[in-house]
């Protein structure tokens, strides 16, 4: 039987109330709880105080606001999946949310929780990094923004300080953009063996589409900040197509740093990075052209 350590429980009634509660030492936010509570049961996490933010519905939104998609930290995975599918935009979020955990877990797990958990195999961290999203962090003295590419300090560590919480994630929306996410996992609900997300903006018409901007996110393979920066740089200004995409995949595979574990050896993971990057880029480009 797995039992968490003794813990105090507080329920936040407003964002300000949550921020006040969070100023106590060794306090953790619980929302969906589907990462934190299993870790507490294994005694990998033993916070002294839990602050339940499930009542803060003002953080549970998903909407387009001008040239930004805004996702509240308390939006559930299932909500983002439904929204992304219904909107037919942001293919990367529809693809990624379909493979986050399983449908029951997705009803409770939150977008903000996934980012803040900072698991090195997290899917949304790679998707938001590919999309060059921005995290909005709220503290008692107001908001600050941090690019998602600078949000994670390392495994299970983020830039969020004591007395702060992640309020929302903002994703830039540009015409001519297509995106996709490709994951290989051993079974439903498992972490990735490897996964790649791509966001492409194309110029120059359908006959000879040129890559105006490229974002490539990788997860579970030790890519710094979940990004394949050298592959992104390589693609800029090149003609979109299998040749350039395959080369980008090879570059991404070369520069990531996977470790051998029960999910596979290093060379297999590098092989997956090359192949999944190619596939994600190809689908992202097809979606950019079709829109």
């Amino acid at each position, binding site marked *: *039987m*797995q*039992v*968490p*350590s*003794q*813990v*105090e*429980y507080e*329920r936040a009634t407003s964002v300000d109330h949550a921020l006040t509660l969070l100023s106590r030492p060794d306090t953790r936010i*619980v929302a969906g*709880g*589907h990462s934190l*509570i*299993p870790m*507490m*049961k294994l005694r990998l996490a033993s916070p002294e105080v*839990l602050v*339940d933010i*499930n009542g803060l519905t003002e953080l549970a939104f998903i909407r387009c606001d001008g040239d930004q998609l805004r996702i509240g930290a308390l939006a559930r995975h299932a909500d983002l999946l439904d929204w992304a599918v219904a909107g037919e935009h942001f293919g990367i979020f529809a693809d990624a949310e379909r493979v986050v*955990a*399983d*449908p*029951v*877990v997705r*009803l*409770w797990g939150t977008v903000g929780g996934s980012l803040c958990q900072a698991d090195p195999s997290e899917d949304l961290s790679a998707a938001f990094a590919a999309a060059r999203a921005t995290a909005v962090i709220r503290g008692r003295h107001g908001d600050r923004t941090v690019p998602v590419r600078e949000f994670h300090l390392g495994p299970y560590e983020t830039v969020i300080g004591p007395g702060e919480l992640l309020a929302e994630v903002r994703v830039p929306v540009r015409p001519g953009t297509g995106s996709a996410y490709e994951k290989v996992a051993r079974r*439903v*609900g498992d972490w990735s063996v490897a996964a790649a997300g791509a966001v492409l903006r194309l110029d120059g018409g359908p006959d000879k589409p040129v890559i105006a901007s490229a974002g490539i996110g990788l997860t579970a393979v030790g890519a710094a900040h979940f990004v394949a920066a050298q592959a992104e740089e390589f693609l800029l200004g090149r003609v979109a197509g299998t040749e350039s995409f395959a080369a980008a995949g090879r570059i991404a595979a070369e520069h990531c740093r996977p470790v051998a574990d029960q999910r596979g050896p290093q060379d297999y993971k590098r092989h997956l990075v090359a192949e999944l990057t190619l596939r994600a880029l190809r689908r992202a480009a097809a979606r950019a052209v079709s829109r």
Partner: protein
Amino acid sequence: MRVAVTVNGTEYAREVEPRLLLIHFLRDELRLTGSHWGCDTSNCGSCVVWLDAKPVKSCTVLAAMADGRAVRTVEDLETDGQLDPVQQGFIECHGLQCGFCTPGMMMTARWLLDHHPDPSEADIREAISGQLCRCTGYENIVRSVRWAAKHPRAGQP
């Protein structure tokens, strides 16, 4: 701490430790042992109940988080001595063998049918993809849910 949870329409108030998991609250405090405590790692889904009308793996929720909320367990599927079509489907199509995963499977199936009255086989497999059955190979569970979809009770979707 004191929690008051409405379970199957009845409010139960209990003094509990904040670390108590919802599955143990239901089974040990309320003696509602229909929900099963399985893997303890959010993988198997035998502990699925509804929390505020959505399925949840109750080994991964604190009872404290359910304070003031509504929980529905497998004990509530039967009404006035009549089995829910999902329960009847599991009987008709032999949807269980050892029965350990069954309460969780049925609670997810009921939720699926409430939102998607005529699910395809693929829809059903997707819905229960986070739940494990080590006996049936899932074939008969899928048939059971299809049976329930074809035999809705009057007034149900």
